[in-house]
């Protein structure tokens, strides 16, 4: 048994044993191939963001800030020089993280540099965007992983066997799944709260496609074909979003959610080409499709030996 599903948890004897078994189970480790792939990808996203120029919209600052950094003085938020400085810090720290230089400092510098970089953009724009929340939060989780497991990784590197060193904990993988699932479930909940269960009536999606979409693509043509068909697709997408959080609990459900969300993103990316959801799509595919299985992500079941020890 080597999956990461919560349903794999052992049945313990009492509350204390249950807590210990749960903790041990969450602390089970796997080789870091999968996590390193994710980390490198996140760092590449960070470098891409650092290379992108900013747009300073003119106008009155919004009453409610766009980010946790909205408390910064206006002179900082609108400063091109400060923005350039953050870009440099972000690019350098991301490269350092990839090269494992100055970790875990470079991990946190990348994570908070990314957060500040995107916050500065949001603070200077008249429209919100949600294309980097997932990237940034997965970066945070993986910085946390480096923070606690860098010592083991260092040992593996020194021994020339990092790829065979069990140093990627199950909690890091599950927490990433949790964030991905919750992010998409929230999207479903917000739609229902805002527009009700009838959100997927087909008309709104057709309007968005006409307004913002590339209407020449086959997927857009399908959407525009008939409102009733579009309503089925839209409601299906809503259901997939709402149930995304279930990906944490079971591997089969995770793959099913992954197929649904990946299909959803393929539709979004081929229709709303300029919206920039590519980063989310890539991360959804990596975590929710059987990439872990292909790479051979297997966590060592230390909890069983712990229970045996108690017994």
């Amino acid at each position, binding site marked *: 048994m080597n999956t990461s599903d919560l349903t794999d948890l052992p049945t313990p004897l009492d509350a204390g044993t249950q807590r210990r078994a749960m903790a041990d189970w969450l602390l089970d480790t796997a080789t870091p191939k999968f996590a390193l792939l994710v980390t490198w990808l996140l760092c590449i996203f960070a470098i891409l963001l650092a290379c992108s120029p900013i747009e300073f919209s003119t106008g009155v600052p919004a009453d409610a800030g766009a980010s946790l950094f909205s408390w910064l003085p206006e002179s900082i938020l609108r400063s091109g020089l400060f923005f350039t400085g953050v870009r440099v810090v972000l690019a350098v720290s991301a490269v350092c993280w990839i090269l494992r230089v100055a970790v875990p400092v470079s991990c946190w510098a990348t994570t908070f540099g990314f957060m500040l970089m995107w*916050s500065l953009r949001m603070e200077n724009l008249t429209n919100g965007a949600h294309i980097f929340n997932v990237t*940034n939060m997965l970066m945070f989780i993986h910085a946390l992983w480096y923070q606690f497991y860098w010592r083991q990784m260092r040992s593996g590197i020194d021994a020339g066997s990092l790829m065979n060193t069990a140093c990627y904990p199950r909690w890091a993988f599950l*927490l990433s799944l*949790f964030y991905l699932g919750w992010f998409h479930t929230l*999207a479903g909940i*917000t739609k229902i709260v805002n527009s009700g269960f009838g959100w997927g009536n087909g*008309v709104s999606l057709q*309007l968005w496609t006409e*307004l913002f979409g590339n209407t020449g693509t086959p997927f857009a043509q399908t959407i525009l074909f008939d409102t009733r068909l579009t309503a089925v697709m839209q409601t299906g997408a809503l259901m997939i979003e709402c149930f995304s959080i279930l990906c944490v609990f079971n591997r089969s459900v995770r793959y099913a959610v992954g197929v649904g969300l990946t299909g959803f993103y393929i539709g979004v990316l081929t229709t709303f080409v300029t919206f920039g959801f590519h980063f989310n799509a890539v991360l959804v595919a990596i975590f929710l499709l059987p990439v872990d299985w292909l790479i051979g992500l297997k966590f060592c079941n230390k909890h069983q030996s712990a229970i045996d020890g108690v017994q």
Partner: protein
Amino acid sequence: MRPLPAAPPVIRRGLELWLAGAFALVHLVAPVLIGERYPFTISPMFCDQPAECCTYAVADANGKQIDPEIFHLHLVYDGNPPGLGMGIQHTPTLHPYCFPCQRQQVTDHVKAIMQREGIAGPVTITRRHLFPRDHKIIDETDQWKVSIDAAEKNGAAGNKSAPLNQNASPNQIANPNKDVGNTAGASPP
């Protein structure tokens, strides 16, 4: 910031699990307590449910396109609820959610701006109206010429707009004088 090699393993293991749990807990409550503030989000993209939409283009007497933002007819809606998760307020527009406005409302609005800004005109407003009919989206284009006469230039309010022509494509129909009833969400600046 350094790794925690000095801490006893039990404490270190407890700390990493505690931090992981705190991360999950914060994100569970953040939509209610923090809302839409990066890096926290309520994922509001496309959460509304428009029933019909309008966009506007403006041209001068020579047919040269003018930035519709000058006339507060620009589109700020991009699928995100306007005003949420942005740091700069967008320039006020007649139709924040791209909801259709009545022709009278649009022309009065444009006239008021022409008077205020001293724009002689005339200008041509091209309205693209998207609405559902027979399980498809109909793309309708109307054009209205708006001008202000001498009396209006001196401050008298009035309405002098005339339909010019209608451009129809295979999926478009023309309706030069149709007033659109749904004005929900329209908030003139």
